[in-house]
């Protein structure tokens, strides 16, 4: 029996998955905080506890994500692009294009169903078009991030946002609130603006169906709907979409063991 870990240290949230020979034995998510090393330790402890295992039982750990280089106990560091492809292909092998909505970036990648990446693109240095805008707006509206999706679906009259910039969007949201615009209409408008940017990025790379959305932003049902509307086709969302990179990292760890054997 062998056990492997996949740890994804993101800029806002960090995630981990522990796999045994028969599949997943546990997963964990927490805020990344300011100390990535400590966060990685915390995730490992939690995963080991869930699987009732000790550090010595772990055969291999693969780290990914923004803070991956600070996972000092990792055996290997892989880019999140590669991990995302591996993770999404394992759950949805028909997917050829995956869109990852992260806190800092949106990433679009093309894969072949085996978990191999063929091309990818990332949003730019500016946070516009990434999931960060959802957190900003949640703070402005004083709602929880995970409530945004459901709330936006209640919209009757979507607000047209004039910007995709996270900073300008905050300013615009505040000014709209002063005009007594309903929160759900504002959120629907924001989803639309974000979806347009995501679509533009995807088109730059070129889209091949099936298309999946993953990452923390894919938990937002309102955003998924907005992207579907703009693209005009179905979007697949795997279970626990925010865990996909960590799952991919764990799968890569397991593959490495197989190759070594």
């Amino acid at each position, binding site marked *: 029996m062998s056990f492997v870990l996949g740890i994804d240290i993101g800029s806002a949230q960090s995630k981990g998955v522990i796999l045994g020979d028969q599949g997943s034995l546990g997963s964990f998510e927490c805020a990344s905080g300011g100390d990535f090393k400590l966060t990685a330790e915390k995730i490992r402890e939690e995963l080991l506890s869930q699987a009732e295992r000790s550090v010595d039982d772990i055969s291999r750990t693969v780290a990914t994500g923004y803070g991956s280089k600070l996972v000092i106990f990792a055996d290997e560091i892989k880019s999140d692009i*590669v991990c995302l492809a591996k993770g999404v292909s394992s759950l949805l*092998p028909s997917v050829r294009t995956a869109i990852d909505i992260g806190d800092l970036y949106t990433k679009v990648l093309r894969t072949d*169903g085996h978990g191999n*990446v063929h091309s990818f693109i990332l949003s730019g240095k500016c946070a516009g078009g990434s999931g960060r805008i959802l957190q900003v707006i949640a703070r402005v509206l004083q709602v929880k991030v995970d409530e945004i999706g459901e709330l936006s679906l209640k919209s009757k009259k979507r607000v047209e946002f004039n910007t995709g910039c996270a900073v300008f969007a905050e300013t615009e949201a505040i000014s709209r609130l002063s005009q007594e615009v309903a929160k759900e209409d504002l959120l629907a408008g924001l989803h639309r603006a974000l979806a347009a940017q995501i679509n533009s990025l995807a088109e730059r790379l*070129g889209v091949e169906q099936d298309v999946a959305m993953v990452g923390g932003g894919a938990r937002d049902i309102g955003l998924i709907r907005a992207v579907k509307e703009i693209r005009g086709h179905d979007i697949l969302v795997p279970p626990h979409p925010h865990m996909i990179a960590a799952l991919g990292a764990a799968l890569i760890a397991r593959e490495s063991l197989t190759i070594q054997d």
Partner: protein
Amino acid sequence: MAEEQKEAKPKKRTTATKAAASIGPLVKEFITGTLQAKAEGKQKVAYTFIVCHHEEIFRALDVVPVWTENFAGICGAKRDAERFLQRAESLGLSRSLCTYALCGIGFDQWREELGQMPPDAPWGGQVRPDFMISSGQILCDPRSKWYQASQQFMPDVPIYNIDLPYPLYQVNRDHREVLGYYHQYIVKQLRGLVAFLEEQTKKKMDYDRLRELVGLSDRTWNLIEETYDLRKAVPCPMGTGDAMNTMVPINFMMATQKAYDFFVDLKKELEEKIARGEGEVENEKYRLMWGGGLPAWYALNDFNYFNSKGASFPAETTYRMVAPLHEMDLPETKDPIEHLAWRWLGYWTFWYDRARKRPGSEPDVERLINRIEEYKIDGVVMHEAFSCRTWHVGLIWQLHQLSKIYKPIPVYVIGKDGKKEKGYRELPSLVLESDIIDITSYSEVDTRNKIDAFVETLESIRTSRAA
């Protein structure tokens, strides 16, 4: 007034060739040469732009060219452009204009305000010109406006504009039908330049000397082609990182014996490296092409980062501003001005016939395909410099067209029925985003994360290639 702080110096980039390493002092030498020429007053000094095929005319009349794009690039490479960009911004110019132009305008305004070079001006600074020759609008739209803006601070400095067009590509129309009209027009433009320079320098053009210089340039073109062809070797002896240095003799020193001799030395060096089996990287795993876009001059170290991952760059499209003359079928003429015009047209239409033969292709895409095949390329890297409209027009489109019409990688994919199918895929590509000299647009961490992901993608493709 804008903040006038310099940024931290970048880590020095490692070059693969001695020739590339010699470029820094060479550039410094010709910047110093412009300052000296101005101080001595024996030669006229003129602002101008690269890739206009007019260097021979300048040199035949002993006019010293000041390549203003080059000076902005130096400021960028030294991470000392920000204070000049901020100056231009404080004049009301947007940063989304060409940052080369902004840097130059900011510098000029400051120098004119002080009546001397700005403090710690890079390599002594950009000399005040006697006149300015703007040109090449079809290539780069900010060029003529740049000098008009600079002239606001030096109204006594005249501008002469030359227009150098070429027929744009049409898939169903042979450009040769209109080439003669373009040729006549360009010849008139160049003769106008000669007349203007004669008036400014009080000299008459020596056409024998001009013919010699044009001949020297032609020989240099051929030599550059032969030299760069050596980079087809596996492992590749010299990469794009070095070529961003060796572009200097191509673009700033053409029509000089020094440029020719430089490539004699580089060719010899590459031949020796090939004989020793010595590559740009010790263990070459991937061969990449710089498929377009000007580089981020302050981040040329990123080429070393690619190298550290086993990636070499045997080819690029940027700054390789020559093409094999013997393949151009240029009309014979003894008039050097007419030859310059034919060469200009031959260069810009070089890929037209080839592109027409491949459905869906286009000259720039055809050039990419040619280099991919000739140089055994595994992946394409491009740089979208936000302020460079010239390169932005069509960069992503080129990649899309390339991926549509050119799929060289055999792979197995999981079909809709869940079974393995053999198919063919496009070459992987990476688009880096920042700017030519505006460092505020750049993040080293993000860029290197992208490079990491791209290299892993290359590896993934290599291992998943169908037999």
